[in-house]
């Protein structure tokens, strides 16, 4: 009797294990894991935070709609998005876990050049096995190089004939600006920015002065006083809100009241609106205005408020959803549908580069795998008066 009970128990256990294995296998076959390597907190989280916010909404919407169909099979998405805090070592560990343990084939981010440099070597070793879709400026220089097929850049390039930086420099030129002083963080992106804009200003015939500060600086009085003595027309400060609030406040105290920037939000301008004269910023989309005229933007704002159960929409951060964010998840899904596969990353990449996605932005990738999007130049003047110029790169 005892042995019969044991046999029944053993058979039942075996069947249970088998059923669980089948169920697990079937589940994993129908889930596409997507990863994200971004700073969601930290001094450099300006860019990664909004990306992670938008990605969560897109994944939730797609899954709630029943997923998506590729080659006759239904899939849902699973988002793995730890917080790098802007730390390259942390990001490397997280990427390794995604690639080796979670078997993720599509990773969004990073936006930060220092983080990209930290993971670049490891990522290249896995070329062909996954796609890394990030906004980091340094990715621009790596696109198209042998062994870098894994790279897609999810932000538009500063320079070039239709780059936003070039158009921003033209905007200053039209204002009759003769001299611009840059005050940039002495780090990887700071030097990339200096290289890009030194040439852009030179071509435009505008004098360009370079000034640097150490990461972690809070009191910029000395360097700002030195800059002020040179009487530049505009200050070009960089490059995150973490430094911009301090720089803009201290600069206005020293009589530097005109700013031009290609990274960062309107927040510092609005906080200091009574002290600035002009604050020209590259803003991928001025949401306050777009919400009233673009139904997709209005829908996104409502979805955000509902998903995060908040009445406040982060208008200052939302423009950074132009990189590895809400639209990009939908675009990846469309690419998988067009490619007829969720596993063949080369086919998905080709599909990704073959169409224009019409979402919050009109997004396409050029032949090198770099994003081309429409954007706005926002000009904040004393008192907070705002003028928006819409740009549509060719």
């Amino acid at each position, binding site marked *: 009797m005892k042995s019969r009970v044991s046999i029944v128990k053993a058979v039942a256990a075996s069947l249970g294990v088998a059923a669980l294995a089948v169920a697990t296998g079937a589940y994993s076959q129908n889930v596409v894991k997507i990863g994200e390597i971004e700073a969601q*907190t*930290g*001094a450099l*989280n300006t860019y990664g*935070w909004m990306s992670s916010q938008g990605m969560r909404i897109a994944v939730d919407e797609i899954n709630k709609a029943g997923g998506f169909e590729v080659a006759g099979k239904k899939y849902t998405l699973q988002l793995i998005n730890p917080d790098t*805090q802007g730390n390259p070592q942390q990001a490397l560990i997280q990427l390794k876990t995604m690639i080796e343990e979670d078997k993720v084939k599509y990773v969004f981010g990073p936006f930060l050049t220092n983080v990209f440099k930290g993971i670049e070597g490891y990522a290249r070793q896995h070329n062909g096995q996954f796609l890394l879709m990030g906004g980091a400026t340094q990715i621009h220089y790596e696109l198209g190089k042998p062994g870098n097929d894994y790279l897609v850049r999810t932000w538009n390039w500063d320079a070039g004939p239709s780059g936003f930086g070039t158009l921003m420099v033209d905007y200053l030129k039209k204002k009759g600006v003769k001299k611009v002083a840059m005050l940039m963080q*002495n780090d990887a992106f700071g030097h990339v920015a200096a290289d890009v804009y030194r040439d852009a200003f030179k071509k435009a015939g505008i004098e360009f002065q370079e*000034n*640097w*500060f*150490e990461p*972690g*600086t*809070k*009191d910029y*009085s*000395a*360097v700002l*006083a*030195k800059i002020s*003595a040179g009487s530049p027309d505009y200050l070009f400060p960089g490059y995150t*809100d*973490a430094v911009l*609030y*301090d720089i803009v*406040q*201290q600069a206005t*105290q*020293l*009589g530097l009241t005109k700013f031009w920037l290609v990274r960062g939000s309107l927040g510092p301008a609005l*906080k200091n609106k009574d*002290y600035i004269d002009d604050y020209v910023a590259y803003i991928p989309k001025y949401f306050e205005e777009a919400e009233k005229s673009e139904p997709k933007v209005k829908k996104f704002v409502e979805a955000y408020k509902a998903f995060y159960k908040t009445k406040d929409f982060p208008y200052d951060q939302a423009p950074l959803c132009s990189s590895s964010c809400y639209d990009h998840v939908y675009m990846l899904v469309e690419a998988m549908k067009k490619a007829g596969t969720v596993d063949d990353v080369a086919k998905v990449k080709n599909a990704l580069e073959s169409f224009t996605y019409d979402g919050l932005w009109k997004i396409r990738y050029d032949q090198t795998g770099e994003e081309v999007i429409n954007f706005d130049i926002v000009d904040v003047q004393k008192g907070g008066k705002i003028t928006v110029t819409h740009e549509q790169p060719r």
Partner: protein
Amino acid sequence: MLQLVVGQLLNGVIVGTLYAIIALGVTLTFGITGIVNFALGAFMMLGAYFTWYFSDGLGIPYPLAVVLATLAIALVGLVADQVLFRFTRNNLINGLIVSIGLISVIVAIVLMVWTTTPQNMHYVLPGVFRVGGVIVPKMKAVVFGVLLLVILFTYAALTRTWAGRAAYAYAQNPEAAALMGVRTKVLQAGVAAYSAALAGLGGGLYASLYSITPEIGAGYILKGVEAAILAGIGSVMGSFAGGIIIGVAEGVGSIFLPSAYNDAYGLVFLVLILLFKPAGLFAVSSR
């Protein structure tokens, strides 16, 4: 150029008082109680966060928010002394290890509560003073005035009161001081709480000038220790002078040398001074 130099001299003096207030805390705890407490930088950071939270989060008027934050940090310092630091008296290594542990805990708590995203307080006192082309932000002038008063008060209390003389006696010979009726345990706890309060006050005033992040304490304790060593541990007015020397070195150095390395200019002064006066600029000779 003259305006630029004068302006940076003034700015260096003002910024230097923030270093000096931390240096004063370092010099009091080490010079009087023999305890090394590098967590004073973390106390300063905590003071900045408390002030910001009390003021912008709870709507308490800024001056009251600073007072409350200072008292709260004094309490934190007192608890830290009673639970941890009092066991590290005259043991540099133990003090250092306890400091590192406590800093990690404080930073981790701040990260959990407020994340590492920088916080910006409302403008407490906007506007600037302009004197002959030299510009001084009004709030910086107020911060300088408050810190100067606190440093002078501390100096007077230590040199002109019975408690101050008792503190010096305790620093020189704790046993003899106890035999003379000094309540040494109360004195030590008082010095620890007062040093923490100084750091908390520094943090509260800092929050009115700059954005706050969990790592600000690390930079300020470094500058504070630099200033205290430069002056000579144990000298109250020396701490003040040490802070100002470092502040001025950074400010004026940034005019003539690359601004990207201004943190190094104070260190250069420290090395130069220690080469010629190893005990510090204002150290009293033991002979």
